[in-house]
């Protein structure tokens, strides 16, 4: 009791301004949340000075609630559709509309500077509203978004005098006209970061050159595929201070002066640390980037369809590399070289060059990943597509890299066993979760039984996100995960024999998680109704394109299920194939 009184006395003895000043050094959402829980006065002080808000699920809370609690927000991040939407598992029109948020914030946050969206739908009207409502608007990041056109971008360009960052990463933009870029006025010079890599058509290149050369603080520039290589040298000369560059198509008629110009331009880029782009690579042009290779920390070659020898020549020069994204053309040989040369490597992603082919088209196996895990002591984040795997290899990787935090393995053929022993890969993944105690994210593949989930439930105590496909035998598997993974926030499952029992037995767990996705599993409509009824702080969405689920027996499994915690009740913008299970108070027969 005395201790509590002491704390209370202390907190009252600090003037608000001092506390506010102290809080201003704390940016992380999690820490800010902790601060707000200390006592009422800290809650009040904190909420008035919180500048950045992160909303991991735009349907978990309403705009009004956010505005009410945090009246002085300058930066907001919102996420919409579930992750599996990336792979076409969420039908068109599901939701994730940002408009209500923008409308509310246009009134409530006139000083808003940053909007960052992921997997949301944003219209041109919304972009226009943003452009005209926030006088000091600086940062617009639209990751995997859709619903807008280059007309909306024109409005942003024309009106946002203080814009610093425009990042359209992986968004689907209807490309009406490349002249939107010309809407940046001649007096505008504050651009720092521009990512237009997702645009289908050519932008007005002279306008782009002028823009880039008049913005002295340009740091990041990611062009789209249509940006011609022979114009790149000029562009670079106008911005030798660039740190991150995404080229366009890396091909041109083979002309010596284009090459020498390009090489010279790259030589002038003394700050360059990251490269990406490289569509349609002509290998003979690659040496033009050699001048910057030794300084590169990030290299994205995941569109570069060049073969292993060329890849090896390039990557072998990048001893400072921390992040590499590449196609499986790199093969085991290339990964061996990577392991030998790039001792600072932290993140590796290997994408498949022929994902739908029946046979392997490249010599990339589990061995490549094993090599890198041996040679690169800082490697902690892996995404690896391959066609074969063994428990032994996974075991070795786990023991080599106990510092692994993100491990996503995709064996292309579902339910592929250990190719040497023909057994399941339970023990291999078991080794991963057992040895990598800080594992935050895990994606499974290959032949897996309930045992792997038992291992995960037992060991993966720090796991926050788990992706499962074509795995498991019974509800026991799901039960292990839900009951064992203390820090689980996101769980996404497809094509697994998981049904009602595990869900209902662990219903309370669902309120501690951000979301659960299950598609092509065995969860019945009746169980969905029950969950929806009994857990009012969950939205239980049944997604079923066969029509209303109440026209079929309660025991009939639903096609897709998306459960997320929320304090704003069922949403009102659902399309015709989504039904929210009502809670008891609103339940109608």
């Amino acid at each position: 009791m005395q201790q509590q009184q002491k704390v209370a006395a202390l907190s009252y003895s600090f003037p608000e301004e001092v506390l506010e000043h102290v809080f201003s050094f704390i940016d992380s959402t999690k820490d800010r949340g902790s601060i707000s829980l200390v006592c009422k006065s800290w809650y009040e002080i904190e909420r008035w000075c919180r500048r950045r808000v992160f909303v991991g699920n735009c349907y978990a809370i309403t705009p009004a609630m956010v505005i009410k609690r945090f009246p002085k927000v300058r930066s907001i991040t919102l996420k919409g559709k579930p992750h599996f939407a990336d792979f076409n598992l969420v039908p068109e029109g599901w939701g994730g509309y940002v408009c209500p948020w923008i409308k509310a914030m246009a009134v409530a946050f006139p000083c808003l500077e940053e909007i960052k969206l992921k997997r949301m739908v944003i219209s041109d009207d919304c972009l226009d509203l943003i452009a005209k409502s926030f006088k000091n608007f600086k940062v617009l990041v639209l990751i995997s978004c859709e619903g807008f056109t280059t007309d909306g971008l024109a409005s942003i360009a024309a009106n946002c005098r203080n814009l610093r960052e425009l990042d359209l990463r992986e968004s689907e933009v209807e490309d009406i006209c490349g002249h939107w870029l010309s809407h940046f006025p001649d007096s505008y010079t504050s651009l720092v970061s521009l990512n237009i890599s997702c645009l289908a058509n050519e932008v007005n290149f002279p306008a782009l050159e002028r823009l880039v050369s008049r913005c002295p603080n340009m740091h990041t520039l990611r062009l789209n595929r249509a940006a011609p290589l022979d114009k790149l040298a000029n562009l670079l000369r106008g911005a030798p201070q660039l740190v991150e560059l995404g080229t366009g198509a890396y091909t041109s008629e083979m002309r010596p002066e284009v090459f020498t110009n390009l090489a010279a331009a790259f030589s002038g880029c003394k700050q360059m640390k990251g490269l990406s782009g490289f569509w349609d690579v002509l290998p003979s042009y690659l040496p033009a980037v050699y001048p910057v290779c030794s300084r590169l920390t990030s290299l994205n070659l995941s569109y570069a369809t060049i073969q292993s020898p060329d890849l090896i020549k390039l990557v072998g020069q990048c001893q400072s590399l921390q992040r590499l994204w590449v196609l499986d053309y790199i093969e085991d040989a290339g990964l061996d070289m990577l392991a030998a040369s790039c001792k600072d490597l932290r993140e590796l992603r290997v994408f498949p060059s022929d994902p739908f082919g029946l046979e392997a088209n490249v010599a990339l196996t589990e061995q490549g990943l094993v090599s890198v895990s041996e040679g690169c002591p800082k490697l902690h984040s892996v995404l690896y597509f391959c066609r074969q795997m063994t428990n032994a290899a996974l075991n070795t990787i786990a023991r080599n890299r106990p510092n692994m935090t993100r491990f996503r393995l995709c064996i292309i053929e579902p339910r592929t066993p250990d190719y040497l022993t023909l057994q399941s890969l339970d023990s291999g993944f078991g080794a991963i979760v057992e040895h990598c105690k800080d594992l935050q994210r895990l994606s499974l593949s290959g032949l897996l039984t309930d045992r792997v989930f038992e291992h995960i439930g037992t060991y993966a105590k720090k796991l926050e996100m788990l992706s499962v496909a074509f795995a498991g035998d019974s509800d026991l598997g799901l039960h292990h995960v839900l009951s064992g993974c203390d820090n689980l926030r996101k769980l996404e499952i497809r094509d697994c024999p998981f049904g009602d029992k595990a869900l209902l037995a662990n219903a309370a767990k669902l309120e501690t998680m951000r979301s659960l996705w299950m598609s092509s599993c065995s969860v019945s409509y009746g169980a969905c109704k029950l969950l929806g009824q009994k857990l009012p702080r969950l939205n239980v969405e049944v997604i079923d394109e066969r029509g209303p689920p109440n026209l079929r027996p309660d025991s009939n499994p639903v096609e897709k299920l998306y459960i997320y915690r929320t304090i704003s009740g069922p949403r009102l913008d659902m399309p015709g194939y989504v039904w929210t299970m009502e809670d008891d108070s609103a339940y109608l027969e």
Partner: protein
Amino acid sequence: MENSLGNHQTEMNLKATELRLGLPGSDEVEKLPCNFSVLRNNKRSSPEEASDVDSISKSKLNSSNGSSHTTNDDQDNAPPSKAQVVGWPPIRSYRKNSLQQKKGEEVGMYLKVSMAGAPYLRKIDLKVYKSYSELLKVLENMFKCTIGEYSEREGYNGSEFVPTYEDKDGDWMLVGDVPWEMFMSSCKRLRIMKGSEAKGLGCF
């Protein structure tokens, strides 16, 4: 607050090996519900027909090469080549497209299809179909409507529903007005209109 609903907690006997689940009704002869994991196979069937499949495999080693990977072997009638499963392998579409364009392989030609009165859009891959009659049959199945016969002079006169499309120039045309190849290359999106809506079209 209870951890679970009903008696389910006690049913989760962790040591039990007899806890097995089948699909509801799997012991009976009733037809299994459609499962949309299979997007297409070599059969030119509509999406609803394409899958009498059970994507949930209980057997341990189910890896006979060449069978569809969303079926139990005994149910598999699919042709030897692999059926494509929706969303697998998990690669973003822009990656798939960028690879395919390079190799000159057939890229899927996904178009949005809307219908008057239906609250949501569908997408179809136009490359899968070889003729208007195939396409129309699929649309009829997809939207549970009857479209009727096309005639050059009368369009779809008398039909309750009329298939139309927007072409490259932004004009709305009747499906069937131009040769199939021209349609394939100029169609931007499809819309099934009510007969009354479509009266102005097709009078060429």
